[in-house]
């Protein structure tokens, strides 16, 4: 024991619980706690807190590691694994009339990718109904469109060739995204079905392809080499998946600057 007359500090109480206290001081702290019930109560609360944390989260460490985190896979340049698991992630949310969102203090924030998927869906719904002005630069000026969007966005923007799935490029526009400029391309089929391809800067390097649906609009979204992609369409999920895969394959072929 060191001098028991030296009062025990707040820091020492924490250090005591975290096994960071020099051995010779432990006796002093224990003697203090025996005569200071409020401090003893707090120390006990911290111990209970630790138990609660472990009870809630240790299970995660005991789960089998998901395949997406397999190191061999992460090292490979080929990205076949993106198709392996298309996980459904349906976000439902209540939109207050006019307010748009319901803020909930303790709610989990959406990932950045989910955030701009919602933006992309909003843009999709806003522009696909346009008859006269669905885009700003028409598909007939494809080269110019790609150069313009690439320059403004800062990554290689290419309009994928979706003829194989019956879609032709209507054109594109620039949008304000949550992380900076976003590119927005619209495609149309002979029956009038429309799909949009939205790209924005993502914080994730690469993610799985995921699906989100709201009302009658669906989106497939993923990140690849620091760019987020959102392909939006109608409620036919199989058709959307088909289109999204083609978009993905096309982006695979293009040489991304900085990637």
């Amino acid at each position: 024991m060191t001098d028991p007359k030296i009062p025990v500090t707040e820091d020492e109480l924490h250090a005591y619980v975290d096994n960071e206290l020099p051995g010779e001081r432990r006796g002093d702290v224990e003697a203090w706690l025996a005569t200071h019930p409020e401090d003893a109560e707090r120390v006990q609360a911290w111990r209970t807190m630790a138990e609660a944390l472990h009870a809630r989260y240790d299970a995660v460490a005991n789960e089998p590691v998901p395949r997406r985190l397999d190191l061999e896979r992460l090292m490979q340049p080929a990205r076949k694994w993106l198709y392996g698991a298309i996980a459904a992630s349906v976000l439902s949310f209540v939109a207050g009339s006019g307010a748009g969102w319901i803020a909930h203090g303790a709610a989990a924030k959406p990932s950045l990718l989910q955030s701009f998927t919602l933006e992309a869906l909003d843009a999709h719904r806003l522009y696909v109904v346009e008859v006269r002005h669905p885009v700003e630069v028409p598909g007939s000026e494809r080269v110019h469109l790609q150069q313009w969007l690439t320059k403004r966005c800062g990554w290689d923007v290419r309009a994928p060739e979706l003829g194989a799935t019956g879609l032709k490029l209507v054109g594109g526009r620039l949008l304000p995204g949550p992380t900076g400029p976003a590119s927005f391309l619209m495609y149309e089929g002979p029956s009038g079905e429309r799909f949009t391809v939205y790209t924005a800067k993502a914080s994730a390097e690469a993610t799985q392809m995921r699906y989100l649906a709201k009302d009658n609009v669906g989106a497939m979204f993923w990140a690849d080499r620091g760019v987020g992609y959102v392909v939006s369409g109608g409620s036919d999920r199989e058709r959307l998946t088909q289109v999204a895969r083609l978009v993905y394959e096309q982006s695979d072929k293009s040489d991304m600057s900085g990637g």
Partner: protein
Amino acid sequence: MSAFRQSVEAMIPALRRYARALARDADVADDLVQDTLVRALRSERLFIGGDVRSWLYTILTNLNKNRRRSLARRPQFMPLLEGNPDASGTEAEGRDIERALATLVEEQRAVLLLVMLEGLSYREVADIQGVPIGTVMSRLARARAHVKAALEGVRPSLRRVK
């Protein structure tokens, strides 16, 4: 697999646990871990030794900081699906600690989890956060006070033991 990669791989379960507690959403958490691993693997040549464990926690903590900064102006909304169909008692307690964690500012939450859940030393946490040990301790004290208060349903008050 190289020794470096083996030590990275061995850390994946702990990183997943830390990320889940830090980010709450399971997908976001695994995104963070995946990002961390990609960066770590790319930097193998740059990693000249030291503690792989601390280094990985540092990358993940910083990635989460960047993620939250990007989200700072986004509106919040509540995911529909939360929790799992489990026994009510432990699940409710699990939600309590989860909610309590959500009341903390990011630096405090990181310190609390790194010390109490991941079992790192004050020195290691100071290195991870790039601050003096004194700062780690004051963040820890505040974090514990806030969580205790949240669990008890009252407003926190920090006492100074002199």
